[in-house]
């Protein structure tokens, strides 16, 4: 075999690889719209914020409103709720991160970091279990304020038994994280905007 033939084969190889590479990049570019169309569309993104009036929520009561298709839990906590939450050491928590969109950095999951300062009585968080997304049921489980046979303030997920305390922090698995606190601001003394 002459060297000329060899050179020819190498040229062919190069052309094949180059053509294949261009076709591959082209295929990837065309695939992107097909993948991207499944992400949230403009109308879903537009629904992203709501306002809630907290005044009607009595102490010890919780309300659930819909935000971005998910249940948002707002609980007016009693003093006992807050004291129980404050008594817990961060080192005893399963998840020591605050999971609060309104607190900067990797803040600890202290009770203060789960609420807005001066408004400790209002706990605002998503009712989406961080295990597989069920809605935890309020006033249940072992981590609320237990008086006799009744529990107030804790949450128990009916799906696989995760439990959350009076600050919405996970205390019993399989859920890995605390219930997330969404971004929200106080518009007036008793009115918040979420999102």
């Amino acid at each position: 075999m002459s060297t000329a033939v060899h050179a020819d084969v190498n040229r062919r190889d190069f052309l094949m690889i180059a053509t294949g590479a261009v076709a591959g990049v082209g295929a990837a570019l065309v695939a992107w719209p097909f993948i991207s169309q499944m992400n949230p569309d403009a109308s879903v993104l537009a629904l992203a914020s709501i306002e809630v009036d907290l005044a009607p929520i009595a102490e010890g009561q919780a309300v659930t409103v819909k935000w971005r298709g998910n249940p948002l839990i707002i609980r007016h906590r009693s003093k006992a709720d807050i004291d129980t939450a404050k008594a817990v050491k961060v080192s005893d928590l399963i998840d020591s991160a605050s999971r609060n969109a309104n607190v900067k950095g990797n803040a600890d999951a202290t009770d203060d970091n789960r609420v807005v300062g001066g408004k400790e009585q209002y706990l605002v968080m998503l009712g989406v279990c961080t295990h597989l997304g069920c809605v935890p049921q309020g006033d249940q489980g072992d981590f609320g304020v237990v008086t006799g046979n009744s529990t107030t303030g804790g949450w128990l997920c009916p799906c696989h038994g995760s439990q959350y305390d009076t600050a919405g922090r996970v205390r019993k698995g399989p859920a890995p994280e605390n219930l997330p606190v969404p971004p929200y601001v106080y518009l007036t003394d008793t009115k918040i905007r979420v999102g």
Partner: protein
Amino acid sequence: MSGPSKYQPSSAVGKWFHERLPIVAFAKDHALDFPTPKNLNYWWTFGGILAVMLVVQILTGIVLVMHYTPQTDLAFNSVEHIMRDVNYGWLLRYMHMNGASMFFVAVYIHMFRGMYFGSYKAPREVLWMIGVIIYLIMMATAFMGYVLPWGQMSFWGAKVITNLFSAIPFVGDFVTTWLWGGYSVDNPTLNRFFSLHYLLPFVLAAIVFLHIWALHVVGNNNPTGINVKGPQDTLPFHPYYTMKDGFAIVVFLIVYGLFVFYGPNYMGDAVNYVPANPLVTPAHIKPEWYYLPFYAILRAVPDKLLGVIAMFSSILILLALPWLDTSRVRSGTYRPIFKGFFWVFVVVCIGLGFIGSKPPEGSYVLWGRILAFYYFFHFIVILPLLGLLETPKPLPASISDDVLAKQK
């Protein structure tokens, strides 16, 4: 298929056509003349039953779509409209709903058949693996179909199952948002599930074709597990097995009919007749019965990511089964110890299904863990060791010999 085709076109038109597209010869070779071991028992009829059920699901599904509306505000009512207003709508929906369950009854029998008789061993590894892929796509199809009526179980089943992907490290949340098309299971999710639920059964049909192709390259296994040694061991598929399969299909359809007419909601969950409510999770959510063993394995592990990994592994491990079983004897009939472990495994799978249907409390948690552990132990420890330690019983000299010996 061994040897040249026996098809001889009998007319001039037939010959003209055969020279251009030999499809008639193909059908005759593969559906009528195909040489089949002569000792197949009724456990071998479930392949045919599965093919019939796929056709039933496609036909009933296509007519349901003529009346169904894939929109969150309307979906539940459109299914009720099918049940109350559409002519024979109740029948078509119950056929489709119970058809899915019966489809899984058949596939589980078919798979345990393969496990008992060693049908996954050389040279049938690829055939077996295509089967596992069919099973995975069936599960995905039934899952998305179950979401369509948009009842409470539809919604919460969809939410929990799609949330499994949130366990993936780092990208989990992006993946779930992408799957949902929003921040939760909602209208975009229902729409895409509908699209895929319509598509996947046809993908299944194509893969079933590959499954049968692979089967016809290597030929059927049989209850003795030994190879076909010559024409004296086989019979043509038609009329011998068309009749046997036909009879089994009729019996199976009678059982299916009993469910459709006398217990249409027996295998379902009453909570799915409550319209979906994204703000309230039902007290006991559980998937359809055919997913329960895997659901039990998911819950047996207290860690989220590990639980999800355990659940997916429990299915994917089936792909490795041909290499985990080290015994060269195929049929469990000649493996006295394997036979015992096989039945223990069947009971463990049923036990896991039972645990999966119970709330995760008390002794159910402990039992779930023991059974889930045993499930993997069977594949990873028992099967590889058994092949090395067990002394099989003597095998018959041929399929023919075995059949004749049994007749004496």
